[in-house]
């Protein structure tokens, strides 16, 4: 019951966000799934299609598109994407700058530098499965009317 209430709250927030319109930064997220098909030359081609047919084990790509719709450049942009429930982070998508990741939502860094606390009190090196948040810091401001796309690959548990 608690989960359902939380989900409803998120949905309300999502609907409300575009209506705010005060912020010049708009963001659109979508989830794609890898579809393998045989190409004419005999190789297997992997294409990204909207996540309609998704079963456990399928590779999905979470895409985050952003755009500055305001008149002024936007600086210090930090885009954060919590890894969805039941989805395991795998890697950054080709063409996207490397993000900072976190295993607890508080400490961000490269995956190799992160450690996870085990139930017995010790720590171990973090793996892709441990990632809970993905975050990008844009080094340069977004000029008016400009935008971009960021993406990371994951797998449905």
């Amino acid at each position, binding site marked *: 019951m608690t989960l359902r209430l939380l*989900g409803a709250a*998120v*949905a309300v*927030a*999502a609907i409300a*966000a*575009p209506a705010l319109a*005060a*912020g*010049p*930064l*708009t*963001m*659109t*997220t*979508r*989830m794609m799934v890898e579809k393998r098909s045989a190409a004419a030359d005999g190789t297997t081609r992997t294409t990204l299609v*909207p*996540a*309609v*047919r*998704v*079963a*456990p*084990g399928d590779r999905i790509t*979470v895409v*985050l598109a*952003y755009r500055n719709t*305001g008149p*002024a*450049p*936007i*600086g*210090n*942009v*930090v*885009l*954060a*994407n*919590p890894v*969805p*429930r*039941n*989805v395991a982070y795998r890697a950054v998508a080709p063409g996207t700058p490397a993000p900072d990741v976190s295993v607890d939502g508080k400490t961000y860094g490269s995956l190799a530098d992160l450690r996870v606390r085990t139930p017995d009190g010790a720590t171990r090196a973090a793996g892709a499965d441990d990632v809970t948040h993905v975050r990008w810091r844009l080094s340069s401001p977004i000029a008016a009317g400009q935008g971009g796309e960021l993406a990371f690959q994951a797998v*449905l*548990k």
Partner: protein
Amino acid sequence: MTATGARRWLLAGTAAIASIGSAQAQTVNPNANGTLAGTTITNTATASYTVNGTAGTATSNTATFLVDRKVNLTVVPVQNTVQVNLGQTGAYTSFQVTNATNDYQDFLLSANQTILTGILTGTDTYDLADLKIYVDSNGNGTYDAGVDTAEFIDELAPDGRATVFVVGNIPASPIGTMAQVGLQVRTAAGGGTGTPGAVLVASAVNLDNQTDVVFADDDNDGLLGYDALRNGAGWAYGSYDIGVHAVNLTVAKSASVVSDGVSALNPKALPGAIVQYCLTVTNGTLTTPASGINLTDVIPANTTYVPGSITIGGLGTNGVCLVGGFPQNDDGTQATGPYRGSYDAGTKTVTATIPTLLGGTSLAASFRVKIN
């Protein structure tokens, strides 16, 4: 909270954790085969920024999709062959069905007694009567008549297992010794406890925000078998082998005078003449070998056994020995050939032991006596 209260709380907490641990060991993890079908996956991103020195935040839309039903199962025989007896009722083979789907599923069961040669070792020669399929209700792996009565697998959890029995009666006089059965297990919709769901059909059109049915099962029995790739069903095979089998064994005996010391051409049964007795044993059941045959014969009164005269393995028909077999030792020790013979001087008994007599064949044993 007082110190005592805190300790009590700690103790209670420990007890709770311990009980959760034991419960998990017994119940299956619903997510064992991946996220449950029908689960909604949502993604929302947030951002923070500054415009002209003023901080702001933004939230993206929420993207969602539904996790589809990835249908998979395994069906394996617990043992390839069970030994049964003639006329046995309630003979059964056992199979294990594992739900590899990412949701609770029903599984419908059916059997086929027409099995192509080559799937199993041996040849399918007879069928069982009154064939039924039951699910093991108490998990003991043994068919309990009247206790295991469910005819389909109800609400099997992801990664859950069920044992299935294919039960039938062995005919009293079957052809051959082996019956083979195939068990078909079809994945059906779960949800209604106590009632079998409808057989799943792969979704032809994939709709957004709908739990599609995707078959991910393999062809688990090769080209000869009934199963096919990605059909939501699995097959497994087992055989009922009649280990103890009655055979139609007959023995014929004849005697012929070999020599009388007088006439070489037409010897008569005179005192001092040598008489050969010929025992021909025939296995009249064509397809079943007879094993452990013991022939015994007490020599007639007023005759004396001729030492070293037992031979076994000769060809013989209607009690007449045509060709001599392997000579045997009188003391029962192994001589050449697979047979054994012996003569007991106390009981005046001749014994011939034949380890195996193939179906539809006959074999002769002979010995000689001297008329006193």
